[in-house]
């Protein structure tokens, strides 16, 4: 059943259902008919037995049977399958028309009004026995009435045979019908499949139309479309990523090439060569850093960034980073403040790096004379570290993408700062995720805040 196609499965089930219904109906009909015939037979026997008793009750002893014989024959003559036997108490057969029967002893001698049946020589009989006790009767007589019901039995055998034949034919027809119904019922599924088959990386923008799809499949199609949307999003990010890598590396490489070629076009003094080499060194360092950061992100994508967890007090990390960054902040007249505290389980080096990225990012965008404030809050089951700085707010449409690789809210800044490749926030997010934490950004009314949340200890 597991490997059958849906169509085969449905036709098979349809067929089984039809067989079950027909069998129940057929057997009930059979049983009802048998019951009906039995009732008819019983009625006939009872009527005739009563008439027989009436006729017999007028006789006086066994010698008188001869007198009522014509009456009895008339009674029997009306019914060709009916036979009557009249017995004396000692077992002598007084009357047997149209022919004597070898009625089993137990039926013959048990005169009650129950109907009995027995089979003999391919015939089936039903009978009834009654005692005739009249006021003028010197001895009790027994009347036995026998009805030959062989015809009924033949009828039932034929009925049953045709029933089975009919059942097989209906089963086959229903299987065929089921197949047709299932196939046409499943047509929308095949159409959806066909559309899905045609999807490729190029056509991730396409969606399966919902209108012609039946209700049961709409959920599937909706889920499928949602999956396509996610794939498309990831794919676009990936393509952008590759394009960005190419772009980020192309700039320093073309600088290197142009500069080196220009320097080599003619003989120069040693300072010029030195200058060229220094400039090359700067570009190479920048490339090397991008490669390192890309490697970190690639490892993080593959779940290879495994933090070495120790208990870390975030306010201490911030204090240490402030010691480092305050030099730079002083230069720009920016104040750094920290408040709150919270313990997390984390990798010291990675947390240093994550928070350092947020700080250097904040330093980059804070105007002179303003304050960058770091707040650590311990709430229930999470510790949140917020780095907040005044500065031009980031547009809401950029907020979600800030953590994408090479993403910069302001494309004009791209070339501005050669040491900042735009991977810092992506790395911070990777680190947060490696710690089962998350990062998000809020920005409004001239304030921008990055929130880093870790599970509490």
């Amino acid at each position: 059943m597991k490997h059958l196609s849906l169509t085969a499965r449905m036709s098979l089930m349809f067929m089984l259902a039809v067989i079950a219904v027909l069998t129940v109906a057929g057997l009930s009909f059979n049983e009802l008919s048998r019951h009906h015939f039995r009732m008819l037979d019983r009625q006939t026997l009872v009527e005739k037995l009563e008439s027989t008793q009436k006729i017999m009750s007028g006789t006086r002893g066994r010698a008188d049977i001869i007198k009522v014989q014509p009456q009895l024959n008339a009674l029997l003559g009306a019914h060709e399958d009916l036979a009557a036997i009249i017995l004396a108490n000692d077992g002598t057969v007084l009357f047997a028309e149209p022919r004597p029967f070898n009625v089993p002893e137990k039926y013959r001698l048990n005169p009650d009004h129950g109907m009995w049946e027995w089979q003999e020589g391919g015939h089936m009989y039903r009978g009834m026995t009654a005692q005739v006790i009249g006021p003028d009767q010197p001895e009790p007589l027994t009347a036995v009435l026998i009805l030959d019901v062989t015809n009924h039995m033949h009828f039932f055998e034929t009925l049953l045979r045709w029933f089975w034949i009919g059942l097989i034919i209906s089963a086959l027809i229903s299987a065929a019908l089921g197949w047709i119904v299932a196939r046409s019922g499943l047509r929308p599924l095949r159409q959806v499949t066909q559309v899905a088959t045609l999807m490729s990386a190029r056509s991730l923008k396409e969606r399966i139309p919902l209108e012609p799809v039946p209700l049961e499949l709409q959920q599937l199609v909706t889920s499928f479309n949602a999956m396509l949307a996610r794939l498309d999003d990831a794919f676009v990010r990936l393509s952008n990523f590759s394009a960005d890598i190419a772009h980020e590396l192309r700039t320093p490489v073309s600088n290197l090439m142009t500069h080196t070629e220009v320097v080599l076009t003619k003989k120069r003094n040693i300072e010029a060569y030195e200058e060229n080499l220094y400039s090359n060194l700067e570009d190479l360092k920048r490339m090397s850093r991008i490669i390192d950061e890309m490697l970190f992100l690639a490892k993080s994508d593959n779940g290879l960034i495994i933090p070495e967890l120790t208990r870390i007090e975030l306010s201490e990390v911030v204090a240490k980073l402030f010691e480092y960054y305050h030099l730079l902040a002083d230069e720009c007249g920016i104040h750094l403040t920290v408040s709150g505290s919270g313990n997390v389980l984390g990798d010291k080096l990675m947390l240093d790096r994550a928070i350092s990225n947020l700080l250097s990012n904040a330093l980059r965008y804070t105007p002179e004379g303003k304050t960058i404030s770091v707040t650590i809050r311990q709430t229930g089951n999470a510790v949140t570290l917020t780095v907040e700085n005044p500065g031009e707010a980031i547009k809401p449409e950029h907020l979600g993408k800030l953590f994408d690789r090479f993403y910069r809210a302001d494309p004009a800044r791209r070339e501005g700062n050669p040491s900042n490749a735009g991977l810092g926030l992506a790395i911070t997010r990777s680190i947060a995720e490696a710690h089962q934490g998350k990062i998000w950004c809020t920005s409004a009314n001239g304030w921008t805040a990055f929130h880093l949340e870790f599970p509490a200890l």
Partner: protein
Amino acid sequence: MKLLVAEDEPKIGTYLQQGLTEAGFNVDRVMTGTDALQHALSEAYDLLILDVMMPGLDGWDVLRMVRAAGKDVPVLFLTARDGVEDRVKGLELGADDYLVKPFAFSELLARVRTLLRRGNSSTTQTIMKIADLEVDLLKRRAVRSGKRIDLTAKEFSLLELLLRRRGEVLPKSLIASQVWDMNFDSDTNVIEVAIRRLRAKIDDDFEPKLIHTARGMGYMLDAPESE
């Protein structure tokens, strides 16, 4: 000081040899693990620089056999693979340091010098002098030309680092790591600012200048006469 460089990539190998030779070391270079092992066992080196991936024996095999032969020479690994397992494996086998490619030559040089210094017990000097600058490491005081110079704690640490490794170009990453415990590459120019401030205090009003910038590489403290 005699070093052995085992590196199968010819370009890197040549430049390593050239750079280290010019830094004043006596450098032998081999291209395969087998040669490296043979050299390491037959000659006395102060330091082995081994590439992990080499034809024949790899760096780990060489290290294992060198250690098995009872040689206690310091070993610095170079590798293109940066996996924690690799690092742990190397350190378990008895490597002394580990550098991931691509690396800056100044970084390599600084690490080589650290490893070589580790052998000789570090200076127990508490007062260090260079030109007319005198630094008392115990009292955390610096005096130049008889004038007391006020330094913050970090400025003092920075000066101490430069002094202890005078004549060496110290990469910014090394300074950040040693003075501020920032063990990752940060893309800001904090170190430039720190050096500028230190210079303002110990160099600006005095001659000769002691702190030198090695452009693109790092900083160095040295007096003119010792150059």
